[in-house]
């Protein structure tokens, strides 16, 4: 959690936390694991009423942020959702809504009303099998045909792919990188649910077998403008993943510290052993530093200052340290920590997925090294 929230932001955060605690406590999270869509649509509409889908949408289109810095407000929700391992198509819907609000046609922007109501879910079909989550890996093809396009390719790990009403598809066109917004029932588009380490969120494979689309499906201009959109989408997605992991890690540390007070061995609480206290101190450091890194990246995105670097810094740090923290917390719990019954694995599963999608910490370290000229 940030330390510089305004009163409005703090109210927004507190409302999100109470909503999650009341509607989706961990027992419900576990029940929802059996839902094919991951969460009831009516619940997502309630979440939308709290503003979870409106932050990135411009006010002129019915949206609006809390603080005027929408990415920062968005990380407040991501942090709380991480604490609760809360399911829902939060990340892809907001990331795509952001792009539609900034680069979409008026017809495409008209969809945002449904997004604001929680009735329309959006997905982003970006990464391809064997790809590395960069724009340069995109091989899906958008071939021009009589003023329209024919899309061919395969996308993997598309979050909420089978739940989304519309998919943003990133592909290569003769004019450069291009993005298209397709209704999910477009002929030639096949969406197949995938299995995931994360038991809460849903992922799908998206196949494009010669999907014919009109020029009105284009989102923004192919080429440099779309490259900028894709970069922005990657950055916002990454900072949300990091906020989610920082929230998860903070929560896991909280209940593991409590466990160390409650659990006695050899006549004393675990919390009294220096060997363990020092590991807890390291974990507290990782947790606070992770939160600092998330805040730095969100601020950079909100201010448009050095955002590529700060987002990579966040992923490189938070990706590794949040997950290591959780493994260490498993170790602190002993045997119970590796059972299905204990909640730890729910956090660890989700955090591990966040760590790997949209670039591993190692990928982001390489990006940083390149930014430094090596």
């Amino acid at each position, binding site marked *: 959690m940030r330390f510089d929230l305004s009163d409005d932001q703090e109210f927004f955060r507190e409302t999100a936390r109470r909503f999650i605690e009341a509607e989706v406590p961990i027992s419900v999270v576990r029940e929802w694991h059996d839902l094919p869509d991951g969460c009831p649509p009516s619940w997502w509409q309630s979440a939308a009423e709290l503003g979870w889908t409106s932050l990135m949408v411009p006010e002129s289109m019915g949206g609006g942020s809390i603080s005027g810095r929408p990415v920062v407000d968005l990380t407040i929700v991501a942090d709380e959702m991480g604490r609760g391992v809360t399911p829902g198509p939060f990340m892809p819907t907001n990331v795509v809504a952001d792009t539609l609000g900034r680069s979409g046609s008026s017809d495409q922007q008209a969809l945002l009303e449904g997004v604001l109501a929680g009735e329309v879910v959006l997905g982003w079909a970006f990464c391809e099998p064997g790809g590395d989550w960069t724009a340069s890996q995109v091989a899906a093809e958008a071939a021009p045909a009589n003023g329209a396009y024919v899309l061919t390719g395969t996308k993997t790990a598309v979050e909420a792919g089978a739940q989304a009403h519309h998919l943003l598809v990133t592909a290569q066109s003769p004019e450069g990188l291009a993005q298209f917004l397709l209704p999910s029932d477009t002929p030639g588009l096949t969406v197949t649910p995938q299995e995931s380490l994360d038991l809460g969120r849903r992922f799908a494979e998206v196949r494009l077998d010669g999907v014919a689309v009109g020029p009105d499906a284009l989102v923004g201009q192919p080429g440099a403008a779309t490259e900028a959109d894709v970069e922005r989408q990657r950055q916002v997605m990454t900072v949300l993943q990091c906020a989610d992991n920082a929230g998860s890690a903070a929560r896991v540390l909280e209940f593991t510290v409590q466990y160390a007070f409650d659990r006695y061995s050899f006549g004393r609480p675990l919390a009294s052993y220096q060997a363990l206290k020092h590991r807890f101190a390291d974990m507290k450091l990782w947790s606070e530093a992770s939160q600092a890194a998330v805040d730095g990246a969100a601020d950079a995105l909100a201010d448009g200052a050095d955002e590529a670097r700060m987002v990579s810094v966040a992923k490189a740090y938070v990706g590794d340290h949040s997950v290591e923290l959780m493994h260490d917390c498993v170790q602190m719990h002993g045997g119970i920590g590796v059972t299905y019954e204990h909640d730890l694995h729910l956090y660890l599963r989700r955090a591990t997925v966040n760590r790997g999608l949209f670039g591993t910490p190692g990928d982001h370290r390489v990006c940083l*090294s390149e930014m430094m000229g090596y």
Partner: protein
Amino acid sequence: MDDFVYAETDPAELARYREEVEAWMNENMPRRDPVNPWHPTQDDDERSSRNRELQRRLSDGGYAAVCYPKEYGGQSLTAAHQKIIDDVSMDFDMPILFSVPTLSICGPVILEFGTEEQKQRYIPAWIRGDELWVQFISEPSGGSDMAGALTRADRDGEEFIINGSKIWSTFAQRSDYALMLARTNWEVPKHRGLTMFIVPIHHPGIEIHPIQMVDRTEEFCQEFFNDVVIPAENVVGEVDDGWTVASRLLFHERASVGNASPYTQGRHRNRTADGVEDLAAIARDHGGADVGRHRQRLGYLETLSRVEELLSDRVVKGIEGGFLPAPAGSLVRLFHGLSRTERQTVAMEMQGDRALVWNQGEDTGAFGTEYVQRQQACIGGGTTEMARNIISERILGMPREPAADRDLPFNQVPRSG
């Protein structure tokens, strides 16, 4: 007083202040030589005269120790103002020797516990660059156990007679006064028999021996006290209540090491460990074939260096807003120790063989030497193990380590050799 006051400051006022500071520095301070920079700890003479002279210039301009109250020679400004001075001064030679411990550790202790006479006598002298202070706290007998001090101060009327030895004082031989912790009562448990004194360093009965470090520099000293006579008016705080004073001194030390003190001036630069960008250039020229590994490590260094700054800001905000307890400065201290040792390691590796074997007249061996003594960053200013104790006990609230000496009269406490 559990933490510093970081007053809200108007951004327009700060922008104006930055312009003012830039203009003044350009006019009055020597620009830092980017190729062969002057190093404040390798001062030119036995009095650290250049540090003193630069401090005097800052003071004359009204930019020295600006967070100190006006009545003692400061400017009564905020941490935000000092940070502006620190940012701007990166391009200039600064009297870093005055920052730690004089202004950032000894200073706030005197502000908090000193008598009005002591404040009037000493504080303006630091700010003007007339007097440098050191700490006589650690002893050869016990690194982290500062309350176990064996140096004795025996009362004799209006005077105290000091005998014993202190160690790890920074440039004591070039300094003027020290804050010294000594035992005044041996019949009570260790925390209750200590007193803090102001000691003139160049004084009959005090012998100073510089300690040669691994890199052969002599930054630290050991002192020996043989019947040194100190007037009772030099006591800081109450007699036998020196631990209260020392605890605050340690707090300010951690704040200072963790970049969370508003009383430091300028920032220390380390040639081999700062400047990650420089390391990228070195890796390009000398890193050899293992590009993938170097990229990972450079990227990680960049990550650590950015996160360290962000963490430092977060901790300051957290303490200020009551989200974190004051000992949270130990988080920054721990991060700093770990990131600095990592940086020293990578810096050495980027140099390839040249850090290990080098041609006469070259200085790439410094990277090897600094690597050999890299653990210094995890020892000096309180070890990382002490930081972990503090984080677990005072932030997470875990039980304190058992101490066999806690309630024993000090003269019954077992001790080594």
